[in-house]
Structure formats: C-alpha cells, structure tokens
C-alpha cells in the first residue's frame, strides 16, 4: 500500500462525507455513486478492482458495506482507511444522534406514540422489501430464493438459533453448487 499523501486523504473525505448524507434507505443507495467516484472521477480503482473490493466488503462482517474502508485502504493505506471510514459513518451518526435527542423530548405526547406505532408496519415492510430487492439482483437465481426462504422459516421457528452456522451452510451449499456446474 502506498503511503497516504495529504491530498489523497482530503479527497477521500470529500467523496465519502457527502455520500454519508445521501444514503437514504441505507448504504446500498450510494454504491453506484461510490463506484462512479472511485472509477471514473478519481481513478482510485479499475472496474475489476472495484468489483473485487465490493465482494470483499460483503464477505466481512459489519454494517452495510465496509466498502469505504477498503477503498480508503487501497488509496492511502491505513490512514486512508481510517479517513474514509470516519467520513462515511460520522456525519450520519451525528445526525441521527441529534434527531434522537429531539425525539426523546417529545416522549409521552399523543403524537410521539402515534408516530412510533404508525411507522412500525412500514418499517417491517421495508425490511422485507430490502431482502426482496437484493434477491432479485442476485445472479444465482432461484437457489438464492430457496435458501433465503428456508433460513427465514428456520429463524422464525427457532428464534434463538445462531445465524452463523446458517451462513456457513449457505456458503458450503453454494460452493458445492458452483463445483457441480
């Protein structure tokens, strides 16, 4: 990894901080923008490298994508990773912190309770939608749907079940599937 020059670090901050504030509906909303900035605008990665970094960010644990971290690392080593991660997550965290403070002040009012109860089913619908959208985008077709539905049923039947064995089973099953193709 190349050592981070000041200019590269500033560029990383300038790219990821605004994206943090544009990612309505979660991190997936801005992946297209991250690709555009990294490949076409700043030439941080080739298209091939970007696809690899994206897949890697999915293999790691953690929120949404650690894609920003990986791109920062590719551009400017450890300090790049630190700057990109902070720029990508901090603005949104500060915003939600301020909003939650305001929200807490209204606790107990009729409106507060109505808003919380009224939004709950929509939130549940968004959870389901998020899964559906990702499944539809997956290149692996119906086996992905089948595996997702089986996992859903298992977790609803046994809520205390730890998901990591399920993830490993998914990886093993699809690995075998790929070998047999």
């Amino acid at each position: 990894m190349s050592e981070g020059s000041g200019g590269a670090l500033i560029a990383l901050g300038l790219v990821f901080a605004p994206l943090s504030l544009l990612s309505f509906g979660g991190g997936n909303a801005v992946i297209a923008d991250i690709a555009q900035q990294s490949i076409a605008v700043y030439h941080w990665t080739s298209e091939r490298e970007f696809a690899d970094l994206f897949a890697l960010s999915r293999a790691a644990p953690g929120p949404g994508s650690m894609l920003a971290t990986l791109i920062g690392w590719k551009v400017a080593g450890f300090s790049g990773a630190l700057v990109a991660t902070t720029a990508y997550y901090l603005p949104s965290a500060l915003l939600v912190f301020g909003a939650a403070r305001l929200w807490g002040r209204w606790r107990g009012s009729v409106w507060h309770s109505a808003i919380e109860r009224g939004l709950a089913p929509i939130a549940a619908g968004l959870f389901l939608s998020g899964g559906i959208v990702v499944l539809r985008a997956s290149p692996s077709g119906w086996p992905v749907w089948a595996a997702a539905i089986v996992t859903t049923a298992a977790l609803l039947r046994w809520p205390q079940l730890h998901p990591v064995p399920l993830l490993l089973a998914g990886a093993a099953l699809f690995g075998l599937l790929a070998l047999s193709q």
Partner: protein
Amino acid sequence: MAPLRSAPAIALPRIFLAFVRVGCTSFGGGTAGWLHRDMVLKRRWLDDATFLSDFALGQAIPGSNGIKLTVQIGQRLHGAAGAVVALVGLLAGPFAIVLAIGAAYAGFGENRILHQMLDGVAAAVIGLTFATGLHSMAHSRPGLAGLTLAAATVLCVGILRWPMLPVVAVLAPLGIGLALVEPRRR
C-alpha cells in the same frame, strides 16, 4: 440526554462488548437484523416496538441502517456516552477484519466458486432480514390496518421497486393518522 429507560442504565463496558460482538458476527450486511437478534431477542435491552420505531424514524435520516440503529440503541441504553461506545464497538471489529481480508485477498483475484459462496452467505443473511421483519411485526401487534400498510410497502418498494422516499412520504402520514384514531391496544 438522560437514558430513556426508568431502569438503571446498562454499564458502558457491557454495551461496548455487546456491540463488538454484533460487529464481528454480523456477516453479509443486514446489521439491523443482527442487532434485533442480539439486543431484542437475546439481551432484551429493548422491545420489538421500540426497535421498529427507531428503525422507521431512522429512515428519515441518511446513512447505513445498522449505524443509525447502533447510535439510537446506544443512546437509549446510556445516553451520549452509550452512543459513542456502541458505535466504536460496532465498527472496530469489522474495520480490522476487512483490512485483513483485503490484504489476504490481494493476490487471490477472481474466483467463481468464491463468488458463489458469497451468494450463499447473502441468501442466509436475507433470511435473517426477512425473519426480523416478520417477527418484529408480529410482536408489535399491527392490526389489519398495519398489515395492509406493511403489504403496501412491500408491494411498492420490494416488488414494483418504486423509490423508497416518496413511498414512505405517502404511507407514513397514513400510518400515523390511523394510529391516532385507533384506540391504543398495548
């Protein structure tokens, strides 16, 4: 802000360790589902209705859902310090792990079987997301109107793939209005 619970705040080291654990085990994205599993089902630090309303309110704010929920839950558990500790805890593990994977992968390159395996992981993670949505909806006792709203959300965003913001902008006032006129059931 003072913690929102009447019960004593959860100690900061416990919050930190709990979020480190979620951070290191929440594979495949979908951190919100992992948080639900750990904070609501396992530790019972908050209930389903609170979790869902935090998630829904977070939709008005940009950013990763996992990050927003982490800040909100940390704040509920131990005020501002709880939010900071929770966020650092959540990110510390994945930050180190993703860099390690990146370094290991640097020579690896393209591999079809690896990509398929990642798809398998993704499928299981989506199962977790589905289970979270269904479980927390059942436990917040939505009623017929709530079920209709949830189904409308799935239809518009999940199936028709309309942009989320305008859909929520239309459905949210409907849901809030219904909750205002409906007698409280909880």
